């Protein structure tokens, strides 16, 4: 019941906003997002106090094709729902004080997006998952198309087609699995797991690659990433935040829920390859980030590097890797939303994101610079920031999985410092120039976005235990499937 409410409350709010077309759309949207956050807090309470059956709902929807409306939350789902409901208020708030056309459509679409994201994270039925997955593409497509920057038509089209192509592979894999479900065919997660495990080894390999490609495009992982820097750059700030803060976690979540438990033989066989690709992606994207001249593109590439590390950790099939991935998803969401907001503030004042045109902002906007430093530290994984917990566990897991790949993955802590410090220096340090001399420091609503995010980065870094505790049982359950194999290793 609660889970259903979490899915459809934002949709109801979105419809209300569409219908009212009020000039207070932004306030309604923020209120709805905060209410949604409270609902998710209740869900956490239920989960913690053993009322988790209240989070489950299972109704047959179209019996003929075995589709059910089956939603539930374990710790993994709950954390991602919490990430979604936690970030959306900040994303909405970040648009306050900026002027743009058709605000009611804009906020409505954000809330539709939230509905789809929550749906993706709670669906326990393969087809339902797929439906939410595709629905999520529609609002973000329009957000980028209507409010995007230069060249948005072409870039958004590429993004749309690319991710749709990936999803198609997933649909094929899901149908293939569905046809192999025992008894009456169904898209129920457990049925699909059973189907996957029953497949022959070549079939499992094929399904592995179909699903991997679909999820890799979404994250994105090298070499499926080239839609991402353009899209992140051209999308409006809130669109970029939705894409990088939450939507890419759909891909990671997909691997956890719809790949790792589905084709165990495929995962074991191709795990090393997947880790290798991911680690190459870390170094590749970090290097490219070093030479980026545009602030936004640079952060886009840094995001590819960070996500690459998460992907590598997933395929180590270890508790440290998966727990690291969970907390790093939270951390990355907070850090990247903070980072894109800092870029938005800079763009708002100077109308540029070219690093060469910036500089000296620290002199005139110390509050922005301080917030930047904290977000940056989260990004470069300094201990006592949220980024460290995730990266430590992830690099640790990759190192235990394969020592040389662990060393290569560890290079991220050096390369990350190289490009982030360079960015900070180019944008914030030095003398002011004609563009930055009249830079005004953070306004109240900008502080209301950045300060809580900065505080969260530190709080999670100092005391990550509550977050780790939420997902620990679910991760342990997931890995039970592999315990005979990992025990041998």
């Amino acid at each position: 019941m609660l889970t259903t409410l979490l899915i459809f409350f934002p949709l109801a709010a979105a419809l209300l906003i569409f219908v009212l077309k009020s000039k207070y759309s932004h306030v309604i949207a923020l209120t709805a997002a905060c209410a949604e956050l409270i609902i998710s807090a209740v869900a956490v309470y239920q989960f913690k106090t053993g009322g988790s059956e209240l989070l489950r709902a299972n109704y047959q929807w179209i019996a003929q094709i075995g589709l059910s409306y089956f939603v539930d939350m374990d710790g993994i789902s709950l954390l991602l729902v919490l990430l979604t409901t936690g970030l959306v208020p900040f994303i909405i708030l970040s648009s306050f004080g900026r002027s743009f056309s058709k605000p009611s459509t804009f906020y409505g679409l954000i809330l539709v997006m939230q509905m789809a994201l929550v749906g993706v994270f709670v669906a326990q039925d393969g087809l339902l998952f797929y439906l939410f997955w595709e629905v999520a593409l529609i609002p973000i497509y329009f957000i980028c198309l209507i409010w995007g920057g230069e060249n948005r038509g072409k870039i958004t089209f590429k993004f749309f087609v690319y991710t749709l192509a990936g999803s198609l592979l997933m649909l094929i894999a899901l149908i293939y699995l569905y046809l192999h479900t025992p008894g009456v065919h169904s898209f129920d997660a457990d049925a699909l797991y059973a189907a996957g495990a029953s497949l022959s080894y070549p079939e499992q390999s094929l399904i592995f690659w179909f699903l991997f490609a679909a999820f890799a495009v979404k994250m994105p992982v090298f070499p499926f990433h080239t839609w991402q820097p353009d899209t992140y750059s051209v999308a409006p700030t809130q669109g970029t935040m939705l894409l990088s803060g939450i939507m890419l976690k759909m891909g990671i979540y997909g691997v956890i829920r719809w790949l790792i438990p589905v084709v165990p033989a495929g995962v074991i066989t191709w795990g090393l390859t997947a880790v290798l690709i991911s680690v190459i992606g870390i170094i590749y994207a970090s290097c490219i980030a070093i030479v980026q001249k545009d602030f936004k593109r640079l952060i886009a590439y840094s995001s590819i590097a960070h996500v690459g590390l998460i992907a590598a950790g997933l395929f180590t099939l270890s508790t440290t890797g998966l727990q690291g991935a969970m907390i790093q998803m939270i951390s990355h969401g907070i850090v990247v939303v903070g980072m894109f907001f800092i870029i938005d503030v800079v763009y708002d004042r100077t109308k540029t994101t070219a690093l060469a045109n910036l500089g000296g902002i620290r002199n005139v906007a110390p509050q922005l610079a301080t917030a930047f430093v904290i977000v940056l530290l989260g990004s470069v994984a300094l201990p006592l920031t949220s980024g460290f917990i995730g990266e430590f566990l992830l690099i640790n897991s990759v190192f235990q999985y394969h020592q040389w790949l662990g060393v290569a993955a560890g290079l991220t802590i050096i390369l990350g410092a190289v490009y982030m410090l360079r960015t900070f220096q180019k944008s914030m340090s030095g003398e002011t120039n004609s563009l930055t001399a009249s830079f005004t420091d953070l306004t109240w609503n900008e502080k209301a976005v950045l300060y809580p995010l900065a505080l969260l980065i530190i709080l999670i870094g100092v005391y990550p235990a509550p977050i780790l505790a939420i997902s620990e049982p679910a991760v342990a359950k997931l890995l039970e499937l592999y315990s005979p194999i990992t025990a041998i290793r």
Partner: protein
Amino acid sequence: MVSIKILTLLIPALPLAGFLLVALNVKRLSHGVASFIACGSVLLSFIAAVTIFSQLLGFPEGSRLITVHLFSWIKAGNFDASMALLIDPLTSIFLLIITGVGFLIHVYSIGYMHDDTGFNRFFSYLNLFVFFMLLLVMGSNYLVMFIGWEGVGLCSYLLIGFWFKNQAYNDAANKAFIMNRIGDLGLLLGIFLIFINFRSLNFTDVASMAPAASTGTLTIITILLFIGAMGKSAQIPLYTWLPDAMAGPTPVSALIHAATMVTAGIYMIARNNVIYTLSPISMNLVMIVGLATALFAATIALKQNDIKKVLAYSTVSQLGLMFLALGLGAFTAGIFHMATHAFFKALLFLGAGSVIHALSGEQDMRSMGGLRKYLPVTFATFLIGVLAISGIPPFAGFFSKDEILANAYAHNPILWGVALLASLLTVFYMFRLLYLTFFGDVRASHHVMSHIHESPKSITVPLICLGVLSLVGGFIGVPEALGGSHWLNEYLSPVFAQAATLSESHHHLDHSTEYTLMAVVIGFTVLVIIAAYVKYVKRKHVPVADAQLSGPSKILANKYYIDEIYNTLIVKPLYWLSNVLDVFVERMGIDFIVNIFGSSVPEGGKITRLTQSGSIGYYIFLMVIGIVLIVTYTLIG
């Protein structure tokens, strides 16, 4: 016991509270209040450290250990690291130095930074630094140590680039952080390996399980840890950030880049004495790298003209001597030299700062000279510092350096010879510095000299305190040969007891050899001082402009071109690779292929559209062909 645990917590908590108070009110607080909070918090922390130290002395020797478990920090599966603190004799020595010297430098900063607009920000960073440094030496496991380790790196970065309008300073800050990160990756990998092999990250667990581990594993672990030490403690090949770090305000150079942070590597190896002792290869590596760095940096210091650069290379060199001691298994000697070095090097940096302050920011010694008349207190204390670092008895440096040299001799006289050479070079460049700065003719411009003044009390009082410490600090380790009992050795012996029993050989020199060595060292030292006196005071030699240099002098003045070599071998190739990846692989490679696939969709559409000609006859024709094919397939299949 409750009170001692609270006291333990207070030591790092006070500077942290000071940081938060100042940082969150950086705009609201007056300079006076901000510096009062910052200095007060470190002073209280020092008092707590002294109290704990005296309590430890009251405990029986074997049980001088305080642990405080705060909470479980990172837990995932079988991995579990706690936020937990530990104080033992080794940590307590560091605590006294960090908070004691740290307090003096805080006080000094009040005078030194008084007209800086970033005054409050400066003090907040200093407090944050002290917090992280304390955490570094108080962590009871590798991960808490790592928090401090990276945290001090952050503060170092923030303080080197404190005057952030100057992009050269920002470059220096970035360089420091990135080079340290290279070392930190080594340390991190070492920590992973420790966990894989011991299933624990607690220092005590690892030390007790280490003898059962294979030597090969321990060797790899200790080498990885040492890479971390190379970064943080500026050893070959990761030392080049430290001289550049002099871009920071001088109190920072004294506190972070001389007395405390750069000794983190010394602490870490001393803390890991058991696993190091069990891997002779690593011990030799530490010894060789330390000795090489000591000599190498000392030669560079000979030809530097920036007063802070000389001291920076001197620090690199002295740290090398400490590593030499550790590599020889003389852990106490390394810690002893760390302590005396903290006194005299902080003194020298602060003295240099006082000179710079008096000369309106001048750092080039060629524009100094004859300052002893104008800056009597600075001169007197600086002289003590120079005598201490040169190892003149009974100044602090004499005892600690002598102990290292004696250990080197016992191990191998060649080591002793090289170490002696390094320390004689030290004597030379330090007296060169002293003479060029305080003796001879006044070479500063008339304008500068019209502003010259002895520094205020907040600067001179810390100088005097450190001067006293540099004078008497060595008495904590007077060797038996000189009628002492070497208190420090006694005090630290429980920490190094296990290593002492594990190490195979016990070199011991008889007293007559020790006397001979001392006499030789002192004799040479005096000769070198005379040589420097003749060159720089008698003949009034002033170093020429860099452009006129040639031969070896030019190479030394240019620091063996190591920065240029690193630039060519590492930095430029990295940028080249990045550009190649960006232009050729990313845009002309992967994205190009993706776009071909993408455009194949509309292109393919164009082709398939041709079949939709609109002619009914054509459609019927296709239909017939289709039916024929189906029928044929059914019949044959």
